[in-house]
Every structure is written in C-alpha cells, then in structure tokens.
C-alpha cells in the first residue's frame, strides 16, 4: 500500500485524491482479503468466483443487472455491495475469516471502479523496461541515472537530497560495504590528502580488485545457499562443502558474470565438457540439510531434499514463495501445485538418495588445491616406483623364462595356492590385501622380498590416506534414465497422484523450444531476457546489501502479497542494466557506490525520522547496524590480529565452553583452534547446523534458504561484543599497538585507537569523554594491579611485557568501549 495514497485517503474521508493504480493500490487489497477463497487455488475457491483474473472479476453477478465489478458503476458492482453491506450472510470477507477492509481501503476500491476499473497484471510478471531517466532541474547532485530516479521522487515529495557524507565517513562506509573490513589509519590519511577528482573512484576500484571483496560478497550468498559445515538433524555429521564456499567467493572476485554463476551452480555438470570447477559449483544445491535420524524413511528424505532445491531456486532467482504449492495451488500468485511439481521435476533426476548415514552422500567430487594436486601426483608416482622395484626384485627372486609369471618359476614351487595367485599377477595389479598375504608368506624366508612388499604397501597407504583426507564436495549429476515425477498429495511422498512433466511455471514465459527440459535449460531460462523476475530479484538483493532494505522490501517475495517497489522505474532500469551489462556484478556495485544517493550523509534531516523512518525515499545515506560477523571482523582487523589467509577448511575460534557438548549430550566436542585459525574471518567459522556459532546474531539459521536480512538489538548481542574473548583480545592488541606507536603520549594513543576503528579523529567533546574515562580506569588499575594483569591475559596472544600493565589495561578498557559505541556498531 502506498503510504501517501493512504494518508490522502484518510484526509479526504473515503475518497482518495488522484489516480488509483490497480497493481499498486488494489491488487494488494484483493490479494490480502479475498484471494484465500477467490484466488488461484481451485480447491479452496468458494462460489466459483475468482478475483485474481480479469475474466473472473468482471463476470456478471448472480444478481440481475450487476457484475462482480462494473467499471464506472459502483451501484452495479457486486463487489462493493459485498464489501459494504451490513447483512451478515452477505458481508465479505466473512466474519470468521478474521480480516476486514479498512474504510480507506474500501474508498480506494470505490475510487478505482469510479475511475474505470482498469485491470493490470501484477507488476513483477511484466518484463522490466528502461523508463526514460528523469530530467532534474534542481541543483541536486545527479552523478548517474540512479540519482536522477531518486531525486525525481524526492522532488515529487518536496524533499531534498542530503549533502555528501564526510570523506572519512564515506571511506569507512565503502570499505565495510565492499570488503567488510575497516580502512587502515594509513589509508585514511592518504585518502584525506588526495584531493584529486577521482580519489573516491580510485578507492572503489582498489576495493573491487581486493580479494576481500569476494569474502564480503559471498556471505549473503552463503545464507541464500543455506551453506553449513554439518548436515543438521540428529547426528549432525560433518560435511566438507567448504571448497564450494571458496569457489563462490572466488567467483565474486573473478566477477564471473551472474548468468554463468547461475548456470554453473544449477547445472555445471550438464554444461558441454564440464570442468571440475563447473561441477564443483553445483554443490550449491547440495547444501541442503541431510537427515540421518534413526527411523527416517529414505524415500521421504529424498523428496524433502528435492523440495528444498526447488524452493531455494524459487526464492533465489524468482523471488516467489513456492513452498505453499507443495500441498495446494498458491493462494495469491499464479503458481499451481502442478507448476511446483513440474519445477521439482528438474531436480528430481539426480542419483542422490535419501539415506542419512553418510555425511557426504554421493554424488561427490574430490577437490584439491594445486599444491595438493602436486602432492597427489607425487604419491601416485611413489606407488609406481615401488611397484617397478618389486617387479624387478621378483625377477631376481623368481628367475623364469620370458613371458612367464613369477608363479610359474621354479622358486615359487611350494607356495600355497593363494600366494601363487598373487605372484601370477603383475606388481602393479595387486591389491593391498594380496600384498599383505604375500608379505606374510615371505617374511621369514626372503627378507629382501618382504622389504619390497612392505615398501609398496606403505606407499599405497600414504596415497590412500591422502585421498581420504581430501574434501569431498557433494555435487549434482543427472541420471541417464529420468525419474518420473508426480504431484504429491499434501506434499506426502507416499501419495503420488498425477504424473507431470518437466516445465517452468505456466504463468511465466516458457523454456526455449527444442532444448531438453533439464537443469541447464532451467538455468538458461532463468537468465534469459524474456524472464521478468531474476534480474529484478538479483539487483534488489544487491541493493539491500548497500541500503539495508531492498527497493522491494520483501526481498524474498515478488509475488502479489510482496511489497511494492519504492522506486519501480529505478528497479527496472537497474534490472535491465544488469542484464545488458552481461550480468556484470562489479559494474553494478560500482554504479551503486559511485552514485550520489549512496554517498549522502546519513544524518536524519529534521522531521524525517517520522516522515520516512525507514529511509524508503532515500533522502539520506543508509545507516544501520553492521552484521554481527562483520563486527567481529572489524575488531580483528582494527587490532591487527586478523589472519588474512583466504579460504580453507572451517575454523573453530573462541566459543564459551560446552556449547556443542550440551546440545549433543557430549557427542560433539568443540575443540577450539589455536594460532592463526582464531583470527581468520568470520566467514570461515565452522557452522554447525544444530547449534550455530554463538558469537553471531541475526544471521540466517543456515537451515533453509534465507535472503531477508534482519537486524534486532538484543542485549545478548551487546554482552557478546563487550565480553567475548575475541573482542577483549582485539581491544588489548589494539591498545598495545597504539601505545607503542604513540610513544608515551596518551592523547596520541587515544586518537590512534579511535582512528583504527572509526576511520576519523575524535571531536573535542568525544575526546573529553575518552580522556576522563581513561583517567578513571587508570585510577582503578593503579589500585588493583592484579586485575590489570588478569585482563591482559585474556586471549591466546601474549601481551607485550615491555608495556606498563596498568596503562595497557586501562587502554584496553578504552579500546573495548570504542568498539562498542554506536558508530562502531553501525555503518554510518
């Protein structure tokens, strides 16, 4: 509902001023109040009336002379009669439905009918087109088309753009948004000194080229992809999907075009001459939970997994809520239960079974780094050498004619039958058990032969152990003989009803003719120019990342019940730009962060906190609390503790003792890492599904696909950033570095701490608070030097013994305070 129209409607009694738009103003009312019984779901439909199609809505009423909706004629419109009557049996929606239209909503419906009742399709099902970029006559800064759409809207509302944010604010905002890490003090100084016109853009390009860009961008993708390091459910076995996680981060860094990103992840195995990398990418759809609970029925599990793949695809690319259609036709959107199972069918042809015992359920791929590939080659070579050596040795031990085997040699006479069978084989074709058998036989009689056999066995063991330790990533494969797909009654795997084919939802453009209807065709269809949804859905999520809210606030729902876009033309312009740029994500990011809209100050202009509390009109810069994982990374980076090594197996940083043990009755023990792994980025933290990392708040549960960001302010989060070892240790390390740099000058050390976290200098009133706080803490630690020593022992790095512990402790408290002030917790 457009808030302004609503306000206008209330002001003018029941009659809204201005033009009522069906898709924006009326469809949401009908959908919310009528579609449950008069919508797309045929089984739930009452009185054979549907209001979600033009035919249904305009058909004649049972009452003589009336239509359900009669354009321009309120009195002849049955709908209005039903909405406004006082008669209990007639009134709609019925009392027991629980919801009623407000008088202003009735006013809107009336006005729409009065104005001719123009019917439109739901906006997101129409292909996006570039609207002309508005002309701006004011002095507003409009660096790129984004700004012109935004300013045009602001001007309509008689509002003005905010001034540009201060340079330091902007620098920190940009660093956090593009890499999730704060700028270093040196970078701040350089940037402040650089007054050239392209200074900002230079930083943008530098950050887009930084490997930390991919680490930041991939976080949201991991949440959408429900990535985790364990299977979930009872048992919660560990999996090794992290090479897929690293692949995804690298794909962002390499700026793999989003259409390819899509094709590889949904169907990399089906691409012609698929590479290892393309197969690895399909791990995306194997990130679902795996149920190993005793008593679970494998066939039921398998259906659950395919449903998860179907619904994840529906949310991530189409922004539609398919899950309702497991059981019935969608209540609001034109998706039938049949459409659901036809989409399900694309994912129903993998060899994945529902057995839960194996945490790496096939199909899988072994993955290794270049170094590991070399090592594997070396180990293979060693096995080969040992085999050759044995072959040579046996020629000596078992002299025989050419063309004969060792078993036929004179020396082999007297060997039991089984050992002879081994000797009959070449050294290279003997299994480990056979080698052992033979070794046992010759151990006493021929030590030289025994030695060679032992050497070979050891080489094989080493090679196999290496292979077992390689991460196995679950991937997608296609069965040669496709499974049949049926509509499942109420989603119950045991109740197949009608057989369906493989197809995309009927209400959307259809697959290209001629192509086999498989996952690759589905991926191609998603990124085809005719598909109205994915380009909008994807750019909207990207927008959400920078502005805190999407242009469509319901990032997970572009259907009729979803929110309307705040800037519909801007969204479409961006969607087309994304597609036409060749799905170039870095290009879109650059466009967004170089806009004046992005660069505005985030101070709330007078009156705007109540007029536009959520900043939907974008008349100021975004200001919102940083994700909890980024707060941890920020603390590590600002303190210099951050271990910058990219990728690799998951880490186990500090966590209060007993968390896993308590949740699993001691079956899973949290063995905390030491050294570098304590200080790697949050992205790499081991994600146990049944009990996620305790230091993160408001993150996705990593159980099913999540694309909507939430931000709450629970006191528990404050306790974590005040008391978690990571933060205390970071504060201590930061204090240490700045004390050493400041060589005895307290004010310099305070300034250094402030600069490291907030990328700016403290203002005089702030410095005053910090200085008096420091003095108070000093006084305390002078009186309690034992406490100072204890504080400096928090965390595994050692405090510099050259510093005065009292001072160091007082400065640690100060640094911890700065890490916890609102500005540090926010992107500003």
């Amino acid at each position, binding site marked *: 509902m457009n808030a302004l129209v609503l306000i206008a409607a209330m002001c003018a009694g029941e009659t809204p001023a201005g033009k009522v738009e069906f898709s924006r103003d009326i469809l949401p009312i009908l959908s919310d109040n009528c579609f449950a019984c008069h919508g797309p779901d045929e089984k739930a439909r009452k009185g054979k009336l549907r209001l979600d199609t033009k035919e249904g809505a305009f058909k004649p009423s049972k009452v003589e002379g009336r239509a359900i909706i009669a354009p321009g004629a309120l009195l002849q419109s049955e709908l209005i009669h039903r909405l406004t009557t006082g008669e209990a049996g007639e009134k709609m929606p019925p009392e027991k439905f629980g919801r009623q239209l407000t008088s202003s909503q009735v006013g809107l419906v009336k006005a729409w009918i009065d104005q001719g009742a123009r019917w439109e399709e739901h906006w997101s099902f129409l292909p996006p087109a570039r609207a002309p970029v508005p002309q701006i006559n004011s002095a507003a800064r409009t660096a790129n088309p984004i700004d012109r759409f935004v300013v045009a809207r602001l001007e309509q509302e008689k509002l003005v753009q905010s001034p540009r944010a201060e340079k330091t604010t902007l620098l920190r905002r940009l660093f956090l948004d593009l890499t999730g890490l704060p700028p270093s003090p040196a970078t701040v100084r350089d940037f402040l000194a650089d007054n050239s016109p392209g200074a900002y853009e230079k930083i943008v390009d530098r950050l887009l080229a930084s490997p930390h860009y991919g680490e930041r961008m991939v976080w949201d993708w991991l949440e959408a992809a429900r990535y985790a390091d364990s299977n979930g459910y*009872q048992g919660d076995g560990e999996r090794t999907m992290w090479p897929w996680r690293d692949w995804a981060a690298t794909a962002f860094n390499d700026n793999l075009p989003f259409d390819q990103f899509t094709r590889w992840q949904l169907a990399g195995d089906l691409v012609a001459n698929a590479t290892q990398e393309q197969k690895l990418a399909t791990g995306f759809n194997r990130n679902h939970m795996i149920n190993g609970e005793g008593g679970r029925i494998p066939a039921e599990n398998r259906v659950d997994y395919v449903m998860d793949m179907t619904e994840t695809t529906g949310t991530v690319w189409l922004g539609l809520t398919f899950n309702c259609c497991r059981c019935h036709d969608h209540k609001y959107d034109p998706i039938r239960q049949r459409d659901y199972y036809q989409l399900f069918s694309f994912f129903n042809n993998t060899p994945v079974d529902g057995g839960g015992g194996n945490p790496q359920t096939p199909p899988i791929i072994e993955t290794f780094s270049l170094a590991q590939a070399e090592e594997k080659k070396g180990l293979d070579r060693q096995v080969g050498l040992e085999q050759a050596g044995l072959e040579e040795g046996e020629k000596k031990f078992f002299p025989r004619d050419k063309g004969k085997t060792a078993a036929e040699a004179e020396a082999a006479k007297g060997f039991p039958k089984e050992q002879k069978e081994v000797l009959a084989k070449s050294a290279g074709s003997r299994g480990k058990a056979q080698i052992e058998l033979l070794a046992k036989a010759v151990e006493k009689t021929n030590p030289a032969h025994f030695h060679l056999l032992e050497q070979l066995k050891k080489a094989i063991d080493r090679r196999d152990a290496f292979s077992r330790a390689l991460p196995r990533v679950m991937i997608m494969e296609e069965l040669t003989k496709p499974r049949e797909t049926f509509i499942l009654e109420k989603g119950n795997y045991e109740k197949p009803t009608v057989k369906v084919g493989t197809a995309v939802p009927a209400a959307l453009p259809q697959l290209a003719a001629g192509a086999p209807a498989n996952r690759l065709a589905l991926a191609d269809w998603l990124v085809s120019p005719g598909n109205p949804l994915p380009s909008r859905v994807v750019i909207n999520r990207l927008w959400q990342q920078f502005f805190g809210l999407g242009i469509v606030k319901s990032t997970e729902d572009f259907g009729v019940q979803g929110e309307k876009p705040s800037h519909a033309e801007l969204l479409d312009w961006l969607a087309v730009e994304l597609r036409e740029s060749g799905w170039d994500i870095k290009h879109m990011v650059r466009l967004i962060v170089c806009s004046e809209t992005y660069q505005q100050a985030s101070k709330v202009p007078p009156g705007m906190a109540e007029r536009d509390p959520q900043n939907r009109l974008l008349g100021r810069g975004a200001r919102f609390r940083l994700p909890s994982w980024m707060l941890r990374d920020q603390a590590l980076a600002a303190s210099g503790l951050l271990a910058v090594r990219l990728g690799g197996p998951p880490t186990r940083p500090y966590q209060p003792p007993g968390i896993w043990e308590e*949740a699993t009755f001691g079956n899973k023990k949290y063995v905390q890492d030491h050294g570098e792994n304590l200080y790697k980025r949050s992205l790499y933290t081991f994600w146990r599904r049944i009990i996620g990392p305790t230091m993160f708040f408001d993150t996705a549960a990593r159980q099913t696909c999540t694309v909507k960001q939430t*931000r709450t302010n629970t006191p*528990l989060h404050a306790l974590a950033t005040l008391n978690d070892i990571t933060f205390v240790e970071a504060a201590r390390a930061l204090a240490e570095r700045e004390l050493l740099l400041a060589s005895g000058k307290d004010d310099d050390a305070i300034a250094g701490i402030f600069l490291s976290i907030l990328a700016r200098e403290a*203002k005089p009133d702030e410095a005053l608070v910090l200085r008096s706080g420091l003095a108070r803490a000093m006084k305390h*630690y002078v009186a309690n030097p034992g406490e100072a020593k204890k504080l400096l022992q928090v965390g595994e790095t050692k405090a510099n013994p050259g510093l005065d512990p009292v001072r160091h402790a007082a400065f640690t408290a100060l640094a911890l305070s700065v890490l916890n002030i609102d500005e540090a917790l926010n992107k*500003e």
Partner: protein
Amino acid sequence: MDPRIEAKLMINRREFFGRQALGMGTAALAGLLTRDGLAAGQQNKGLPGLPHFAPKAKNIIYLFQNGAPSHVELFDFKPKLVGMHGKPVPDSYFEGKRFSTMTGNPKGKVMLAPVEPFKQHGKSGAWVSSFMPHVASLADDLCFIKSMHTEAVNHAPAISFFLSGSQLPGRPSLGAWLSYGLGSEADNLPAFAVMTSISKGTTCGQIFYDFYWGSGFLPSQHQGVKFRSGADPVLYLSNPEGMSAPVRRGMLDDIAKLNEIKLKEFADPEIATRISQYEMAYRMQTSVPELTDFSKETEKTLALYGPGVKEPGTFAHHCLLARRLVERGTRCVQLMHAGWDQHRSITTELYTQCRDTDQPTAGLIRDLKQRGMLNDTLVIWGGEFGRTPFIQGDLGNRPQWGRDHHPYAFTLFMAGGGVKPGITYGGSDDLAMNVADKPVHVHDLQATLLHQMGIDHTKLTFKFQGRHFRLTDVFGKVVKDILA
C-alpha cells in the same frame, strides 16, 4: 494518535531520557515505533491491542518431556491391555496407520501391559501409575488430557510441531509468539527463557535443536534465551577476567555519553535504542546472578523440588529457576528434559526418568500454589507423542522391553492458569491405541494455551513470504470444556 501507542511512547521516552533531556521531540521518537516490529531493543512491550481479552494466565511454564513418555505406563490405564498382555495386536486397531521405520508394520507384534500398577488418586480419582507418586499426590490440581493426538512420528518434527506448529524448522515457537505479542514484564530478564536437561546415564537422548525455541521469521529478539548450567548462565554474561564491575560501569557510562553526542548530531532514533540495549545488557548482568542464587530459598522450599535442586543442570534445579523467572516477570519458560525415548528401556531407564522429573514437577506446582502464583501461571507437562501399547522387542527379554513412537493417542497434563483442576478430559480406546473420545489435536492445545494468555490464536499473525502466519496454521479450536 492511538492512546496505547502514546503510552508506549511515553514509557520509551522515560526510559531513554531518564538521565537527561536531549531535546528530541516526540515527533522524532514516533519513528521508533514505525520500524519493523516496533523499535527493537528497548524493553519489549508487545503489540498494541494485545491481549485480545482478559487473560487467565500471565505466564506459561512448559515442562516439555523430549522423547515421548509412555502414556501407557504412566497415566492411561487400560484393564483390557493387562488382560491382553502377550497377545497379538488386533488388526482393527492399526489399519491404515503409519508407524516409524523402527516398528514397520505392527502386525504380528504383541501387546505389552504396563509394567507398574495403577491407582486412582484424590477426589477426582485420576489414574496414575506408581511411576509418578508425587504427581499422583497432586491429582486434584491437575487437568489430564488423555485424547492428545499428533501428525508426526519422528522426534524432531513432532517436537517442532508441538512448539512451533510446524514439523519443519523455521517457524516461531510458542514462547517467541508470546514475547512478540505480549512482550516482557521484566526489563532485566528475557521474556522467553529455555533450559534443557537429561537424566544421568540416559542412552536415548534426543538432541535439543535450537529451533525448538527459535523466533522463526519474527524479530530474533523474541527467540528463547538459553539458560545454561555453566559459569555463565547466559552466554557472555560475565565481564572478562580483570574487568570488574566499577570498570565496566564506567565503560558503559562512557559508551552512553558518546552515543548521546552522536544522537544529538544524527537524530537517528536507533541510537537511542542502542543506549537502551546496553543498559538492559548491564541490568541482565546484575539480575541473572541474583536469579540463579538460591541461597535465600528456605530448606522447606528446596525440599519440595527434591534432592537434585541444588545441582545446576538438573530438571529439579530448572524447575525452581522457572518459578524464580516467572516471579521476576519472564513470560514463558520452556524446560526440556530428554531421555523419554524408551525403545528398549521401559523396565530400566523409564524409572530414572520418572525419578528425576516426578518430584520436581510436583514441587514446582506446589510451590507456585503456596505462593498464590498458580492462578496466573499455566504449567504444562507432556511430550511430543505417546508410545505403542504393543511391544518393541522380544516379550521373553524383559530387561529390553520397549515401546515405539505412537502419535495416535497420548496423555498430557496441565495445572493452574485458569484450567479446571482435578479433571480428566477425553480418552483413548480400550487399548490406549487411538483416541475414542473428544480428540485434542496439537493445534487445539496451542489455541487453548494462547487463549489462556488472552490471545485469539486466529488473530496473532505475522506476514512473511506473503502469508499471514500463526502458531496454529489454519487450524486449532480452543478446548473450552477444560477452562475454569
């Protein structure tokens, strides 16, 4: 402006600006209320318009028995079953029913009589077996529902169904809905607290998934706060080593001053929220240790809960903590005790389970009653389903007797909170196999619990993915007959 919102605004104003006036107008503060789910972080006051009607109960204590206690052994006495011990399950009782893969088809299985004797108790004459002497002695305070039935046959989906209304993870749990709808009465403790326990030596514990107390799509501040038995009852509660209370208080004052400077400059109401968030964190740091300190409880009170009460982490300890939480304004306390999954331990571990939970349960109800708190506290005891009246295992091997999962009829009891005391509602058939009288579905129970809290279960909804979700999905009828 709606007077309720106005009032809320004033409370917030006082909270935020108690220390000094900051010159920010009411208008700017209005923004606080229009953010998603009201401004997060400051004291949670619930939704305007709630409760929908005068509540019978202010608090809920849910004693959830994970693993599914055997109704056949504990409460649902069937003389016919005793007579049929060792005889085959009659076909007519299970046709068309679905059991877990451990049982497969009940055909060919034999009936198993309860292993302990039953007696009628109190004026109400409720049947309780000798497994539960303490609960039995309270029979006239309890309302037994013997016609519970559910849809799920495996633990996690079934527990999730009871606590969140959905077999799949991801929906808000009962406590989260209560926190969201009604808010908290405490400004220093969470609205929704959770504790988990298991009997020592139990071999059949079911994992406590955190979605059993999750907030689903509701703002995450409404998720249950887990109270633990370790050094920190709430995670990260303690100040770091070497940072004692005066230092911390000073730090928080500095943080608040710096935030106030920022608020003046930026006028972002979220900054005011931050100030309040940090204050509440500090209050929790002082109130939680007070909460978990039982030294002021009398020996007489402690004795009610049984010998385990002084040992952190036990069900008994948690029961007393539950009373103390409710006393201090926590809206919903969910205790979960695992180990009731008697697939082959009816004659062994079931005794341990009852020993560890029977007296604390009765003790809690008695304690609430003697303090006059039972009137507005609703206590619920029950598991996620029942257990088969027929055997799992071999009749000749008594030490390994077991019963499998059974969703078709089981027993749950309640006390206080405006529920009729001393009654038995509904019933199963003569073999405790299927519901025969006045069935109560999980959604009916949920509707009833919300009703007692003053909530119309059809009206407490949250729009997510285009749908108005509620705890009871599109089902649920309040069980009016059990209401006092």
